[in-house]
């Protein structure tokens, strides 16, 4: 899976927008959206919100967790705990990126939010690397990590599994190599 795919999935998350146009309910395969009343908040998927926003057809209301105070709390919590803490949204990183890129004018203190989310992300990635490291070092057979988001799994998933494969091969080759040697002799 690629980050783009993860982002695609994240675009299905619902956000609230305030449209500035009027439109009856629209019927899509994924479900009905609307009705859109000017000035009245309505929940739509992120992809539509961004599309409307780009066309200046709506104002975005940031998700509740996208707030400096809450994110600070989350970041501090994340730093304090050794394990992963639950994130406010399974797509927090993607949503932050998308919404801040396209609708930063509707999000108060956008820059701070960006920094905070990045901090949280970095902390989590560091933890992830650390745990991968200890996993490999101790040659554990399995490990369990809670509260990882899809994008985070994606960043290490492919690499880690391949690396483990390689290591496995290397280790295996080491022993058969010895035995083959003995056969040679």
């Amino acid at each position: 899976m690629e980050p783009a795919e993860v982002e695609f999935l994240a675009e299905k998350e619902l956000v609230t927008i305030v449209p500035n146009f009027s439109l009856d309910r629209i019927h899509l395969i994924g479900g009905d959206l609307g009705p859109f009343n000017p000035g009245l908040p309505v929940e739509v998927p992120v992809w539509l919100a961004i599309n409307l926003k780009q066309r200046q057809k709506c104002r975005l209301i940031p998700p509740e967790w996208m707030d400096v105070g809450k994110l600070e709390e989350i970041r501090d919590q994340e730093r304090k705990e050794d394990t992963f803490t639950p994130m406010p949204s399974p797509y927090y990183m993607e949503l932050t990126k998308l919404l801040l890129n396209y609708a930063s004018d509707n999000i108060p203190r956008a820059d701070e939010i960006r920094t905070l989310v990045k901090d949280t992300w970095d902390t989590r990635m560091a933890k992830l690397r650390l745990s991968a490291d200890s996993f490999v070092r101790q040659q554990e057979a399995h490990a369990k990590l809670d509260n990882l988001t899809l994008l985070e799994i994606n960043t290490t998933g492919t690499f880690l599994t391949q690396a483990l494969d390689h290591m496995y091969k290397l280790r295996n080759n080491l022993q058969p190599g010895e035995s083959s040697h003995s056969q040679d002799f």
Partner: protein
Amino acid sequence: MRYGHTEGHTDVCFDDTGSCIVTCGSDGDVRIWENLDDDDPKSINVGEKAFSCALKLVIVNKQCDVIVICSDFMIKVVEVTDNSKQKTFRGHDAPVLSLSFDPKDVYLTCTTSWLLLQKCNDVINAKSICRLAWQPGSGKLLAVPVDKVVELFRRETWDSQFKLSDASITQPLNVVVWSPCGQFLAAGSVDGNIVVWNVETQQCIERMKHEKKYSICGLAWHPKYKQIAYTDTEGNLGLLENIGDVEKPNDKVASAVAKDYNDLFDGDDDDYLNGDGIEPPSSPKSGDNEDDADDLMQPPGHVRRAVIDDDDDNSLDIGLIKASSALLEKEDDGDDQTGGFSALPPSSTQQPFYDGPMPTPRQKPFQPGSTPVHLMHRFMVWNSVGIVRCYSDEQDNAIDVEFHDASVHHATHLPNSLSHTMADLSTEAILLACESTEELASKLHCIHFGSWDANKEWTVDMPKDEEIEAICLGQGWAACATTALLVRVFTVGGVQKEIFSLPGPVVSMAGHGEQLMVVYHRGTGFDGDQCLGVQLMELGMKKRQVLHGDPLPLTRKSYLVWVGFSAEGSPCYVDSEGIVRMLNRGLGNAWVPVCNTREHCKGKYDHYWVVGIHENPQQLRCIPCKGARFPPTLPRPAVAVLPFKLPYCQVATEKGEMEEQYWRSVLFHGHMDYLSKNGYEFDENAKNQAVKEQQELLMKLFALSCKLEREFRCVELADLMTHGVVNLAIKYASRSRRLNLAQRLSELAVQKASQLAAAQEDEEEEEDFRKHSGAGHSSSATNWGQLPGRRVQQDQEVEDAEETDACEEEDETPEVHKEKEPNHFSKGVTSAEVITPKPALVAPSGRGRVNPFKVSSSKKDPVVPSANVLDNMTKYSKKTSLSGSRAVNKQNAPVIKPLTPKPKTKQASAASFFQPRTPATNPGEKTVEEREEKAGNESQEAKVTAQENTENRRPKTGFQMWLEENRANILTDNPDLNEAEVIKEGMSRFRMLTSEERMVWTEQARGGKVSDSAEDKKRKRPVSEEDEVKKSQEQKSEDTNVSKKSKPLDPPTNNRLSAFAFKQS
């Protein structure tokens, strides 16, 4: 007095030099005021959200470098110079009520919950806040308010020295504060009394009462002058000057109560009321600044013995903090104090005091949807069209106009050089108005962006000394109300039109379409009530006044905060208690409360700021405001939608709930009658839906009452029903063996029918009518609806028929009946799918007479059809409520389709019996038309194929096609039948088919539509089954599913079986 903070706990103090007042409030802000007139206090946000409810007090100690804030169980010390340094003292296990710095900076005293008072977990619950105070200078005495007296404790020993009390104090004291000289002690009580004692003599020298009796929660002496600043729990800041001209402290009575008493209380103290921040009084210089600032007084001599109880409830030692709250044992109360005080003639200290009802200050005029004028950034209007914001900082004075719907007009930024304070916004124009200045007259300024010429703006000056107080826009006109008690109407292009006088000063006005609503003061209200009147006029082609200055009902002690129209044009308003009322034109223009926004608030100080009302769909659009009455401009507030709820009794019960729904539906569709009466267009569909919804509710209520054996109530309910539904009710009643009820209902039905007939005597067009009733009336009552016409003539017959019916009904097993009853509604959905042919209708028509009671008994399968009829209704209602119009269309279609042809069969056979009656359903007729439109597709197709059936030029129906095929069979079975009898027989056979088979026929008749509707059916089924599951227990639905499945095998028996299973479950 002026508005300082939002409601909630507040506190106040002077800084050391007396140059400024510092206040803090529950909004978490600390404000620094130059003086009372300072409109632009410096605000420091100390607390974040967590603090906002808990921020309790600010005390600035001598060096003015430490601010202490206690929040609940903690004390925080903040150094003013550096916000980042915060010390926290923990350890209290009761909420900290109060604390105070020792003048020598050694002690920080604090009170926790007193034992004397109720111990409580939250500051909010504490009755009194027990604000204690050190004697300034020497710090020898600590004054603590204990219930209704002030106790004075000596430093370090914590002995109670003596007590101060006063006869006028009837409620616990909240606050005590020493004068800077240490000579006087002021105390504020929960009920708004402020009392000042001379500590030395222990005499009361001053008493005053807060006009609104709000609880005083903060008091502070001016360091130099004889002023006391106070704050109350509603967030107001006030100043009391010239405290008892106390040059001679021994004066028994300081008669000079604050001279400007009247000034102080002249304004009202709610933010909305004094929106523009009145308060004349108090330039600090005016005080007779004696120099008693320095003469420190000695603590009075007599020492009272007190027991100090240092138990954990009252006091705690934390570091350098010595907590000194003491629990007093009772024996020591100061008899001599009381004695001393009784020496004082209590009355003499008070002004002659009128104790009767007090006139309420009149509320100021306001624009609906605006926030107070004194704010720097404010909403001038927020309505359903858009938002007008006003910024008036130093650098910028501008107005921002933004439209919700960008297609109306683009957002606009206007300079506000004339300093407009009022605005209104419509889809055609922006209307602005300003008050007059020295040079300039009051102006009305209109930006008519809807204009097609180049001049979009016009301005009108008011005559001299006439100020605009309220403005509004309608469709094609603008209006303003002025101080000259005039309402001036203009066209939107600027032509002056009508002008008329108002009976009183305007409060607010609103326009919509051609309606103008003006609210004004009819008189003076008393005891907090406003006395308002309302005029409603129509400025259209025929001008008329709908409301002639009727009194406007408001909740007690409240004032008007919003007035306007619903999007559909019903006048509405909101009062400060959050009650939304709407004009019920169907009830002689009475005002009906439709929503209590306060019910939806989470906190005591939260409010909803109404911005718009929609009747269809029922939405109250408003902005939730935390701890305030109105929203700030930033961050941009989000609109929320509240449901309406009429304050009916017992809405928790099924009955109450349905009653509320019914009347709400009636009320919120009243605008349609109004619109149609005035020749406006409106959505017929919506109206029919509303009627249908109402009838469903009535029917449900009817069934409920039936179940509860409330037959009289049933008849009352039936009285509200339309004619068609009454017949359904009759059917229901007879089915549930309530013959008495059924008879009464039938009388009622006859009555209704005759009324209807009388009403529409002139509407003959029977052909048309038949078509309607045939085409339509969909699933429900309407087939019945046709009958009543005939019933009139057959009334006598009914009775004998009834007897037979009764007998026949006896045949059926009674327990089956019993069980079936409750099921009618709860379970009905299950069989809703089965479109049965309404056997009851056909047979009687064959006989040429109708007996509603006959139905159940004469037919082999009475349950299914009836359940069917009812269920279509219930299901329908459910779906509509679930999802909007589309769902309705979707599932309407399949219901209607099989029905369309059927009535025709009936007509074919029974045409001869039908008199040109115009019998049923005046109200239903429209439904019919609309139905027919929907059914239009198929019927048109069918028409193409229609040939033989020339009698009424109708396309062939399923039944006819079936009959053609089966005529031979019938004839062979009964060779001696004539044509009419053949049809009759055919009909009864046709009815015995399962619904699926019949569907096939009807589809064939329609031609080509089969697959389509079959698909519809498929689609529909899962939904209905879901409903079913929701509605009834799983087991039941299983039963019925099973029965459904097995049906096709042997129609009649299966029907019966399934019905039985149905009943059993």
